[in-house]
């Protein structure tokens, strides 16, 4: 293998060694005595569920968090990484999960900011363009970052990091916003860097990627290192078991009783961009029938949020028949009116959008259902029936197995997964005829995610229509009866799950036109 290049003098020597690293937030030990070594010329995977402490660990390695205890050694020397600039000087580069880009600046300016001060500004455009093509991540240096899709922003992050030629590259979930084809290009680049003797710390939820790419893996759970392994010798399910600590079941999808009535009809929906950095929607047609789960795939930032707002009524349309719910024209109706037609909506952002963070769960329940459950929740004279709301909240908590610290805690006090279970349960409790969910399991751990998926499938099988927008292809393949792809504000025809392959969907996500014609011919046959 290419490994021979890391010659005798460097082989076996650790680039980075971490001993007993601990970080405490209040009473929570986010990292608890973590040990980690990264050798020169290896790709090292860091695995764990959300909240396992991975991000906290890498933030300490990059100097943006200060450890409470523990030693970091770089090339055998103990070092204190007091700030990101110290980390950069040592030769550590990082690609962040949550972007650290400047929206009002161009791609080239964003890159310039992290290069050495003596690099002339005028040459950066050309350099960035050349490098981006050689790494298979093409980029327009003059484009404003605010105008770019999330996938393109990720490319800037990666190129910005590579231009600094670091010895250790930390990648935090780099492929979550790339199409499968773009991810392949990234892997080639990473393998090339490994051959050049660079080390890579790779954080990902996608176990297939880890098995394909990484030489070693360190697994974290609840802030502690629970194991090491060679990912190439493991299976995705054995890796998942190590991460979660117990067996993870996939959701079961019984065959659907097809050809129900149309519950949601989208007819020629178009929308102008709402802000300078948002995506217009172009002539979208879609029909979701009773009994089916329809998935919408796509790289983030291709109009999914704008589409969700148009369907939920956060953004009303001029034409009433652009959105039809159970045969009624709903395009001009607001959110509550659409809920009264039997629809339920779960937005992507949990805190601040799906729930009011500083209000109790029962109050959040009342906020979303005061119109639809008026008779149950509001008594004579407009007074709130708190007893009825409390018991409904407890019913939802029990049905969805929401784990909480107090009987009726504030929404912000719940972990992401538990809050999402509550929000989904709050809508399911109404038995809606139409359920529209944006990113149902984003940032939710595997156990809770499986429960949410199962609940949505059961809702569909009981005769409702379910529309799921997600970036997680595995999730869509697990749940959906058909998958449509959103790209650049346009929606493809739905592909029945029996005909859908990762490759086909991936091509559509990247905007490939030839596949489009091919696919629509197929669906025409199928319908």
């Amino acid at each position, binding site marked *: 293998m290419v490994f021979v290049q890391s010659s005798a003098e460097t082989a076996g020597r650790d680039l980075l060694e971490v001993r007993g690293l601990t970080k405490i937030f209040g009473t929570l030990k986010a990292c608890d005595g973590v040990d980690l070594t990264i050798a020169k010329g290896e790709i090292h995977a860091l695995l764990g569920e959300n909240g396992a402490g991975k991000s906290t660990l890498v933030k300490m390695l990059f100097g*943006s968090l200060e450890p409470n205890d523990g030693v970091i050694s770089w090339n055998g020397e103990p070092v204190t990484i007091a700030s990101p600039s*110290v980390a950069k000087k040592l030769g550590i580069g990082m690609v962040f999960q949550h972007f650290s880009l*400047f929206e009002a*600046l161009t791609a080239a300016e964003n890159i310039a*900011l992290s290069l050495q001060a003596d690099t002339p500004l005028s040459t950066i455009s050309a350099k960035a363009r050349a490098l981006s093509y050689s790494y298979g991540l093409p980029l327009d240096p003059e484009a404003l970052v*605010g105008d770019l899709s999330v996938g393109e922003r990720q490319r800037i992050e990666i190129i910005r990091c590579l231009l600094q030629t670091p010895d250790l590259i930390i990648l935090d979930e780099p492929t979550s916003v790339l199409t499968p084809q773009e991810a392949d290009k990234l892997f080639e680049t990473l393998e090339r860097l490994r051959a050049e003797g660079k080390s890579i710390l790779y954080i990902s939820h996608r176990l297939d990627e880890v098995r394909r790419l990484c030489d070693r893996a360190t697994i974290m759970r609840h802030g502690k290192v629970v194991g090491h392994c060679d990912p190439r010798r493991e299976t995705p399910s054995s890796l998942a078991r190590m991460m979660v600590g117990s067996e993870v079941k996939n959701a079961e999808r019984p065959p659907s009783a097809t050809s129900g009535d149309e519950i949601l009809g989208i007819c020629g929906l178009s929308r102008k961009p709402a*802000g300078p950095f948002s995506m217009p929607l172009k002539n979208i047609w879609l029909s979701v029938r009773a009994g089916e789960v329809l998935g919408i795939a796509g790289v983030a930032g291709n109009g999914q949020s704008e589409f969700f707002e148009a369907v939920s009524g956060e953004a009303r349309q001029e034409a009433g028949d652009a959105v039809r719910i159970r045969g009624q024209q709903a395009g001009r109706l607001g959110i509550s009116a659409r809920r009264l037609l039997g629809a339920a909506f779960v937005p992507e952002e949990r805190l601040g959008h799906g729930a009011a963070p500083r209000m109790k769960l029962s109050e959040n329940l009342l906020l979303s259902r005061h119109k639809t459950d008026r008779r149950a929740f509001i008594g004579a004279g407009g007074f709130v029936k708190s007893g009825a709301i409390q018991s409904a909240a407890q019913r939802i908590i029990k049905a969805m197995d929401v784990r909480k610290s107090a009987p009726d805690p504030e929404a912000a006090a719940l972990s992401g997964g538990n809050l999402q279970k509550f929000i989904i349960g709050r809508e399911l409790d109404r038995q809606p005829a139409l359920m529209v969910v944006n990113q149902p399991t984003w940032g939710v751990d595997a156990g809770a995610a499986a429960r949410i998926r199962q609940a949505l499938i059961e809702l569909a099988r009981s005769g409702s229509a379910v529309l799921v927008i997600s970036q997680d292809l595995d999730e869509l393949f697990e749940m959906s009866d058909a998958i449509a792809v959103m790209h650049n504000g346009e929606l493809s025809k739905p592909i029945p799950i029996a005909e859908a392959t990762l490759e086909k969907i991936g091509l559509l996500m990247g905007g490939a036109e030839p596949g489009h014609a091919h696919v629509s011919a197929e669906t025409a046959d199928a319908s």
Partner: protein
Amino acid sequence: MGMAESILLTIATAATPLLIAAIGELVVERSGVLNLGVEGMMVMGAVCGFVAAALTGSPWLGVLCGILAGALFSLPFAFLTLNIATNQVATGLSLTLLGLGLSSMIGESFVGSPGVRLPNLFIPGLTELPLVGRLLFGQDPIFYLSILLVIAVTWFLFKTRTGLTLRSVGDNHASAHALGIPVIGYRYGAVLFGGACAGLAGAQLSLVYTPQWVENMTAGRGWIALALVVFASWRPLRVLAGAYLFGAVTIGQLHAQALGLGIPSQLLSSLPYLATIVVLVLISRNRRLTMINTPASLGRAFVPDR
């Protein structure tokens, strides 16, 4: 000197303090800090400039003292908002109140005492040119400085690396910190520069515009400068246009009042504010351009998590 020429001259003199204070505040806001203390720093510059000039007899020393006073007076604001992350709006407002009170105290015994005016430049030959001679070649040094400032700040913000870094700090301080940029350091620099500019603008009032000390002599100019920055979408050349428009309408309505056109004087007095806002709103209609130029972390306290 003809009537038209003298009107043009007064317009320039009226616009200069607004322009200088607004350019300073523009740099502050581009770094993501909202300093509502412009009025207070300006009035401190005015009183310290006047007192220094009166005591030493040198208007030049007066200008220097005005600049220093403005910069020094911005330091407590910088410390409070940047080091201990107090609310920028409340801190800025208190700075203005403090400045107004403190300046009255310092200047109490100087009310009514004769002032020293900064001499105008005079270039033989060029200054005698009709209409524009005095305007372009016969003004006080602060006028030329104000024009230089606009050019220098434009060049600094959009052509230099330090300017780019400053804008990035104002756009997203968390990202800037993650890149290893010293966010607090850049903001200190910007706030001090804004203070120095406000001090200079104040000194212009008490050493050029009306060479004397009157309590609260800034008369709300600091607030107008603040509004100019926002309505000019944080772009230096638009600040220049706005300041001169405001100066022109101010002088114009004074002349209109003198002519006795039968329009209520209160209405005429409000014209400069109205006209400036209307025009700047019209030119900032391009929402995209406004969004791009608006510092996204404006007014948000930065506390790096450690």
